[in-house]
């Protein structure tokens, strides 16, 4: 995966567009964003600009496959972004809020799977010499973050749609989460140090990450779902920054930092959405 992203010239312009858009969406303190629709348009423009740049600078062998996959993924999105609520009245604000959080959970599922697959690809495309320890570390960390994010998003989605029974967090659950996290981090470190035993160590780590995601999403009261979502969005941001390091792209590094900073504010506190007032 050490590919060298040759898009940083365009990346600077995209970064300027993204920063302007962030300012346009959260610029004023008086509660009225200056030009929110234009800001969202600018964000979409930056994404399309970067995608065009990546596809344009490639050798053309996988361009068609990439375009097909992007179109397929985008065509699924209307089904995952729609408002739906299983047992609650769709018009109630609580039901609508759960519906938005359910959409966010689906975003973390998609992002988590993507990060995990990229980490796995990075592991198998990196040689296991001593000097590539940083690439191995990033691959293993990406795999761990991706699987954890996927499992937490899935459990959260199941809870928000009431496929799982309500649970009350206990002190024991918190201790188990810390123990499993420590064990998974230890296994990840061993994988980086001893790549010869990587298959079994990574398998165990993935299993622990799945369990960790389930525990961390089930061991909370559902009103703290935004905290879990914010934490995992921040982890996806950290993964983007790490991918930026691997691909030698300052654009991805800066963007990952921005996402981490944006997600930090959701580890505590509450959020509310205007969409909860609207109906389909």
């Amino acid at each position: 995966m050490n590919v060298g992203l040759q898009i940083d010239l365009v990346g600077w312009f995209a970064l300027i567009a993204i920063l302007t858009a962030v300012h346009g969406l959260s610029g004023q303190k008086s509660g009225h964003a200056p030009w929110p629709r234009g800001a969202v348009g600018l964000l979409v423009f930056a994404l399309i600009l970067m995608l065009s740049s990546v596809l344009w600078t490639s050798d053309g062998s996988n361009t068609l496959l990439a375009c097909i996959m992007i179109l397929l993924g985008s065509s699924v999105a209307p089904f995952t972004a729609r408002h739906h609520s299983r047992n609650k009245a769709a018009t109630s604000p609580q039901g609508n809020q759960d519906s938005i959080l359910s959409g966010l959970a689906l975003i973390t599922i998609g992002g988590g799977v993507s990060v995990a697959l990229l980490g796995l690809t990075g592991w198998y495309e990196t040689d296991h010499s001593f000097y590539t320890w940083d690439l191995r570390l990033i691959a293993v960390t990406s795999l761990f973050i991706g699987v954890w994010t996927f499992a937490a998003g899935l459990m959260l989605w199941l809870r928000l749609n009431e496929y799982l029974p309500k649970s009350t967090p206990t002190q024991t659950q918190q201790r188990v989460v810390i123990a499993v996290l420590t064990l998974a981090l230890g296994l990840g470190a061993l994988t980086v140090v001893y790549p010869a035993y990587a298959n079994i160590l990574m398998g165990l780590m993935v299993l622990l990450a799945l369990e960790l995601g389930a525990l961390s999403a089930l061991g909370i009261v559902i009103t703290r779902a935004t905290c879990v979502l914010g934490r995992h969005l921040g982890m996806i941001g950290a993964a983007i920054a790490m991918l930026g390091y691997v691909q030698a792209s300052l654009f991805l590094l800066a963007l990952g930092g921005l996402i981490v900073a944006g997600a930090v504010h959701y580890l505590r506190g509450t959020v509310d959405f205007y969409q909860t007032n609207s109906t389909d």
Partner: protein
Amino acid sequence: MDPVIALYTVLLAVALGLSGFVRGDARRRGRSLLLAAALAGFILVAATSALVNCTTVAGMILTALAVLFAAQAATTAFSLLWREICCAPAARIPQPGTAPITPRNAVSPETSPPGHSSPENATQPNPTEARP
């Protein structure tokens, strides 16, 4: 890439993001969460870059699936953000004589009883503040 340059870039971006995202009241933070999700959709760029530079068949399959899921996540995030933007003006048209929305007035389901979590309640004029 030089790790020191990478670390400096990430630190500067985090500091910039902390100063930019911190603004806004409790209701705006919902929008900021969706904004963070939309920015996380830029994982699509990294995934596409990995795919177009991939050489092995196994790597191509894995990164193609990564692009698929990243595209789904990015488009969903932009849809939710756009819907939030479109819904915002209807909920916050100020009425004459009403107080502007402040974080104190904005409520959330977590901190308020179920009957008081409607956004309309946050925009209702406070009688004591509306009177001169």
